């Protein structure tokens, strides 16, 4: 078991009362799995993804990485864990707008304190993503498909053990979406653990297992 949650609950205090975003969520992700998380808008998918990624402390319960409770680690340790072991890809790509393609990727390596053969590795991963001719372009100069490929390159440069993808094809046309999904499938085949949030049942079907969340609770086995 690479990652699991144990009765994880997340409540938010708001002006008009308390909102329960996740309630007693217990899931297990095996190493090398390709898991999709589905559910309607506002069901708690993104909250669960942030919690699994060590960025949102559960109000109750715990998240374990290789049986270690990550929310008992110090903030700095959790940041280091994210920097070295975790990759994120988002629907809005979230590239740093004032950095070039090569710099966006480079910064991820810097944060992981892993500068060995930095340039060579960056050039290789960008070549894998077919971006060799866009190294010094800003994100505003790229197509949406290219931007998502840069985001993938940024997540993959540090060779993470697990990749979290939040609707990575949500802003892409069908062809580009298919390209990105193909990359994710290839990565999974190479042994990467991938957790993918999606609304699209067809995309969910591509994964090995689907976890469905409704109103912050896991729906009894959707597809396993």
């Amino acid at each position: 078991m690479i990652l699991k949650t144990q009765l994880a609950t997340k409540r938010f205090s708001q002006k008009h009362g308390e909102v329960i975003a996740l309630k007693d969520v217990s899931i297990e992700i095996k190493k090398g799995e390709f898991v999709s998380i589905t559910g309607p808008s506002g069901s708690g998918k993104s909250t669960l993804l942030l919690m699994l990624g060590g960025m949102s402390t559960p109000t109750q319960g715990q998240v374990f990485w290789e049986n270690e409770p990550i929310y008992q680690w110090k903030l700095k340790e959790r940041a280091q864990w994210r920097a070295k072991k975790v990759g994120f890809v988002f629907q809005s790509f979230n590239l740093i707008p004032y950095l070039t393609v090569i710099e966006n990727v480079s910064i991820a390596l810097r944060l992981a304190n892993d500068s060995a053969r930095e340039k060579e590795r960056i050039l290789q991963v960008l070549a894998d993503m077919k971006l060799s001719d866009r190294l010094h372009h800003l994100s505003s100069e790229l197509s949406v498909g290219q931007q998502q490929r840069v985001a993938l390159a940024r997540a993959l440069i540090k060779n993470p053990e697990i990749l979290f993808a939040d609707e990575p094809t949500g802003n892409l046309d069908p062809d580009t979406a298919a390209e990105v999904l193909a990359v994710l499938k290839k990565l999974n085949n190479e042994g990467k653990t991938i957790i993918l949030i999606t609304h699209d049942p067809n995309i969910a079907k591509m994964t090995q297992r689907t976890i469905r969340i409704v109103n912050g609770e896991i729906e009894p086995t959707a597809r396993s």
Partner: protein
Amino acid sequence: MKIRQLVVREIFQRNNQLISSLIAVSLGIAVIVGIKNISLFSEKAVASELDSLGANILILPKSASVQDYYSADFQNSEIPEDYVDMLTNSDLKGIDNLSPKLSMPVEIKGRKAILTGILPRSEFKSKAMWQRALGIFSKPEGCGTVVPIPGLTDSKKTIVRKRVIDDLGKNALLVGADVATGSKISEGDSLTLLGNTFKVEAILPETGTVDDSRLFTHLHTVQKIAGKESLIHVIEIVGCCSAISGGLIEKINKLLPDAKVVTITQIVQTQLNTNTMMTKLSSILLIIILIVGGAGIANFMFANVYERRREIGIFMAMGAGSAWIAEIFLLKAAIVGLTGGILGYFTGTILAVILGPKIAGIPVLPIPLYALYSILISVVLSLLASIIPAVKATRVDPVVIMQEE
């Protein structure tokens, strides 16, 4: 990619913000530099004016009074000229111009006048023992050091008030305004007094005091005429007012127990009050500008943090810790502070040099040391004002990265 490069890229990406924040910081520093520059030269000008009020410490014979001093009637009570040696060779701090003096009544063209002997600076310099004590002619730092300011410092007025002159021949004569007018004496005239011939070097400007009825010549000449070799009536001292309030009088009393040491309270008090007022005014302005400037920088940094919440969330997702995130904002603050400090120094100096003569009526010159202070103040202020925004940045909720743009 290094964090420094990242910060510089971000700064240049937001040109408008950069320009507005630099203008804010630079203007703050420019105002500080301008005010400090003008007030420093104003203080010098005021110190120069106050200095022309004359001596504020008198060393008199035990039996003499201040009234005797003003009337130049010491009734045969004198002190040894050696007291001047003792003062100059002592380690007393805060003594500016020392002026030993011996006076005697004379008659000139039927009018009564006072012939006063003074010692020129060249006499002090010529004495080997006093060479090491030449600093005695300079007030210590922070004492309102008097620097001659072209257009403001009147050398003749200084001679009259302080009896300080760089050089004076044994038979040279400086004539007070009343005596010159009453006896129709002009510069270059030759005069005979008590069988001695003098050449009139200068006619002194009118002061409205007893000095207008005096004639000044070399101390040793007067001593010879009066038959009072190595004796003087008084030593006038321009003492540093802060040194006076710090116990200078007691120290002189201890050094010269057989003399009477008195202060001219009104002069000392005026000097102290003026210095205190200028220092307070300058400090109040400085504090106000620092608070306003600090608030401006903090506001700019808060806005920057708010605008970059998503970016901060992305960095967090990539594994950035709190220290790294705080560093990018503090580094930005330091760069803005450094640039603002440099620009502010030059702007403030240029404004002071141009406006100083118009506002304060004094010439103002650039002070290079203020460049260092400007940068230090600007960087430290920027960093201090950015601490809370930087801490706020580390507490951004990463959920912002999940929100659609």
